[in-house]
């Protein structure tokens, strides 16, 4: 049996897609700047400090947060650790294989990590316990449970929701030793970054491409914005190019759509 590498979109289907786009429509009847329905479930893993299952259309992502203590990096002695890791489960898609994280999964984790980090969502200074010695380490592990395009945004929302609801143990310093207490405190979340991915087809940009659209798009751009509408991270993918005007258009759309999504994520993770 031959190995399937990627989803191949039928030529006639692609032609139909482009034809529809020229009339301002999409194959799944969404508007160009409309994202698929987002659902959020938090606290799904009891043993994790925080967790969330997010669905974006048929894409489904599970994020879990584990918070422990450890030594800081030597160059940032006063900051806690925050690491995002992603894996695509073999059951999630016919094209996913078991084994170490694929290139796509690594890019996914890095793009999501960058959005969280550069927006300064979590105040890493507040995760410092003893400078240079002990800090909180926050590991966010993401499992992709179903793939139907735009994993960047689905994963980002799952990580944001898991972090917003995560609780960590309080600590006390007794005889120069860090002792963890039973009481819990929320992770110091300052902002809610929202990532919005757009796919380019010719001169059209569409928000939140589904699996089929991802198979046919020319390129994609992921832009993460914070509560104040600042762009804090972005990533371009696929071989094709994008014009400066389109980048600005993408940023504007991302800020606008991001606002709606942020409101929903905040609402879903209210304590």
């Amino acid at each position, binding site marked *: *049996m*031959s190995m*399937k590498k990627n989803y*191949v979109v039928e*030529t*006639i289907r692609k*032609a139909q897609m482009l034809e529809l786009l020229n009339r301002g429509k999409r194959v799944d009847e969404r508007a160009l700047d409309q994202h698929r329905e987002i659902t959020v479930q938090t606290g799904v893993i009891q043993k994790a400090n925080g967790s969330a299952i997010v669905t974006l259309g048929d894409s489904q992502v599970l994020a879990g947060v584990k918070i422990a203590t450890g030594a800081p990096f030597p160059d940032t002695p006063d900051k806690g650790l925050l690491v995002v890791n992603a894996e695509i489960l073999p059951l999630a898609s016919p094209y996913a294989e078991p084994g170490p994280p694929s290139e796509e999964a690594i890019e996914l984790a890095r793009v999501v990590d960058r959005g969280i980090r550069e927006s300064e969502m979590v105040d890493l200074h507040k995760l410092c316990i003893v400078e240079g010695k002990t800090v909180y380490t926050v590991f966010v592990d993401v499992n992709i449970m179903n793939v139907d395009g735009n994993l960047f945004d689905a994963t980002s929302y799952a990580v944001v929701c898991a972090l917003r609801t995560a609780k960590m143990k309080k600590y006390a310093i007794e005889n120069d030793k860090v002792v963890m207490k039973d009481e819990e405190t929320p992770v110091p979340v300052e902002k809610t970054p929202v990532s919005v991915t757009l796919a380019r087809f010719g001169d059209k940009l569409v928000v939140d491409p589904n699996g089929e659209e991802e198979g046919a798009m020319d390129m994609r751009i992921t832009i993460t914005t914070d509560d104040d509408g600042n762009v804090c991270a972005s990533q371009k993918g696929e071989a094709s190019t994008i014009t400066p005007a389109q980048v600005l258009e993408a940023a504007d759309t991302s800020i606008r759509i991001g606002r709606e999504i942020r409101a929903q994520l905040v609402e879903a993770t209210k304590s």
Partner: protein
Amino acid sequence: MPMVQRKQVIPGDVIATGNHRYGSYIEKRGDEYVALRIGLAEVGPDGVKLNPLTGPYLPRAEDQVIGKVVDINGFGWVVDINSCFDGFLPASFVFGREFSPATHDLSSKFKVGDVIGARIESFDRSRDPQLSIRGEGYGKFPEGEIIKMSPTKVPRLIGRRGAMVNFISERTGCDVKVGQNGVVVIVGPPEGMAKATAVVKMIDQGTHGADLMGKVEEYLGGSSVAGA
């Protein structure tokens, strides 16, 4: 005419006992014939049969299928036929006996992503099904709308001796090509295509009992594009 008994079964149900010939999705345990799928079981003079209500497409020789080219290698095209098996269309079936990988460019005939109609030449489960495009109506579909439906609903879309599919074609003015594997390609005027697509989806989703034809007729109503 001998009576054919039909009944709905779920996996594990005993369809019949005794000595019969039996088809796919049925297992013989002792002298009991046990259903392996949800479906409609038939006990008739030809033996015990089970038409599953759900399930993937399992290739059979002589089936007409519609697939998409997903890969090209030196000897032919790998075709996704909406099944757990990939179809393989050998280049020698297309270019003839004198085919040589050195002189023939396979992608000049079919490219990755092309949708083709083909016939299953042979399939024995030990190898991927082999396809052929020899004959009328096979080969690349240059345009049209592609719809995937449940392969088990294909007989309903085709209807008795093609009655249903002909009716839809006639009323919508579209050419409706149906692959046994549940892939449908519709070509025709835009408004007809939208209607035909909706009908195909309706048949796919529906658990309509009798008189599916009546429902389709009602849906397509007097708004015949072909002026029928």
